């Protein structure tokens, strides 16, 4: 079965206060960074998955993202999938 690489990006919904992001933004200002309008902290999850085809991989990864990696009450997620290039292995 083919392998796929995936990246899931989980971020707090914009309506949810991100105190860690606010604290980091404040530190960035102290570092002298100018013009910072937004800084929000999320999670990035790297995944490799074996699946029968792209659609199968997508279905499983969407379930994983929505039911475990993110809590849809407070978080949004995005998913990027790419086939592993077998010519390199």
């Amino acid at each position, binding site marked *: 079965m083919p392998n796929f690489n995936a990246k899931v990006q989980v971020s707090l919904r914009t309506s*949810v206060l991100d105190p860690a992001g606010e604290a980091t933004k404040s530190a960035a200002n102290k570092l002298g960074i100018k013009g910072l309008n937004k800084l929000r902290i999320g999670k990035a999850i790297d995944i490799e998955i074996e699946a029968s085809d792209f659609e199968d991989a997508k279905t499983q990864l969407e379930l994983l993202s929505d039911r475990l990696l993110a809590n849809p*009450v407070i978080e949004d997620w995005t998913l990027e999938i790419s086939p592993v290039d077998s010519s390199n292995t």
Partner: protein
Amino acid sequence: MTVGIVVFPGSNCDRDVYWATKGCLGLSSRFLWHESTDLDGLEAIVLPGGFSYGDYLRCGAIARFAPVLSSLIDFVKNGGKVLGICNGFQILTELGLLPGALTRNQNLHFICDTVPLFVSSKRTKWFESFQSGQELYLPIAHGEGRYQCSSDILKKLQDDDSIALKYSKNPNGSICDIAGITNKEGNVLGMMPHPERACDEELGGIDGRNILQALLEK
């Protein structure tokens, strides 16, 4: 007529709860390992505080998949009482038995304190012995206790009279000062404060006793 106290890897208030229910209140109590699925003979179940499964990913996110919790859903449907304290409250929201989510405290600090609260609803058995609006003091100890939910969910909680406990002085930024909520049926209570740490005068107060006593009251 026994209280079951779930023990997850990383629970650290399980023994405190046992000490309070069995030792202080004389309620029949036993521990329930997280892999157990047999809830026979239990009238109430406590999900204690701590850091279940290291709180990896999100507080309560991994614990949600523990075998004991798949049995817990049927237990709740059949009217069994469930009390989630602190990490237990976080698990109940991840599991979907209670709405909303617990997020990082607004001031980013882990808050360890004894705080004033008041009974916002005495609709359920848990707070039946209290007066409406009655003030009580309970210890809190959490880094992620800021209750969050959508405005629709908040309205539903208010309409259902399911906001059981509120902070008198909001310590963590919780929406609407929420410290504890119940489900509509009233048999599930989730709360960030620790009633098990307020069951003995020697430890500074006994305001938690009546909440735990309600575990085994009809």
